[in-house]
């Protein structure tokens, strides 16, 4: 049986792709505003927590972890992981078309390879069918 994904599950995978890369970018932007943190000035880390870019970055990274765990609950690790790599492509494309940075031929080749890799797994089943799940705990055991 080929496991296909529902639109809401594709939305979760899109969140996996986007939140990590955008969150990292926002964190980097915020920390550049805060300035270098050293062992002698650890208080700056608390100041960083008041920076809106840092706060948004942390929220996005929390969102990444939640969506990553959700995806792993209904898809194989080898199906979900290439999606996380797609984040590198998002950062590179943001750098090219938003920040107008130069992207070398090597990087374009890397982007093409990652997109192809994601395309390979996206065309296949999302979950391996096991005849007898090992120690599976049915969701109904979870109490509200």
């Amino acid at each position, binding site marked *: 049986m080929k496991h296909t994904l529902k639109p*809401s*599950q594709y939305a979760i995978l899109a969140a996996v792709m986007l939140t990590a890369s955008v969150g990292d970018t926002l964190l980097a932007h915020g920390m550049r505003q805060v300035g270098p943190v050293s062992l002698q000035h650890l208080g700056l880390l608390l100041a960083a927590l008041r920076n809106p870019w840092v706060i948004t970055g942390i929220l996005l990274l929390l969102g990444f972890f939640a969506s990553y*765990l*959700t995806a*792993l*609950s*209904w898809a*194989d*690790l*080898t*199906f*979900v*992981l*290439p999606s996380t*790599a797609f984040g*590198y492509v998002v950062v*590179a494309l943001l750098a090219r078309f938003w920040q107008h940075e130069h992207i*070398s031929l*090597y*990087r374009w*080749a*890397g*982007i*093409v*390879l*990652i997109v*192809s*890799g*994601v395309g*390979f*797994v996206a*065309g*296949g*089943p999302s979950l*391996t*069918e*096991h005849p007898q*799940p090992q*120690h*599976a*705990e*049915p*969701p*109904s055991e*979870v*109490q*509200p």
Partner: protein
Amino acid sequence: MSALAPSVAIHVGTLETWATILSVAATAIAGDVLTAGAMRRIGDLDLIRERAGLGGAIRAVIGSPMFLLGVLCMALSFFSLLFTLSKVDVSLAAPASASLTFIGNAAAARLFLKENVDHRRWAAALFVCVGVLLLAH
């Protein structure tokens, strides 16, 4: 003997570089596989959230020892990366450990999670691995 000393030193340095990079990848793979195994045992989080709410889903995840062990391995990987970055250039350490993690995860998922890693998924892991290395240029 003295003429050999620099090459031996370079060899040891290279060995240490790749040992630290391998430790980052190994702990990251352990974290990913343990986390994925825990989520497989817990079941579909969307269904749990429908049935028990967001709090129930969070309790189901945090109550899994396998998940907590996975998070511990991810934390170890993070600190290994910090240690590695203190000795190795980020332009080598970050893409090399990420690429090794992608390939290692495919093998570990097949071995421990019994996932059907067919030609399509091996090709994806290889393409992403090389792609990440190229992005670092």
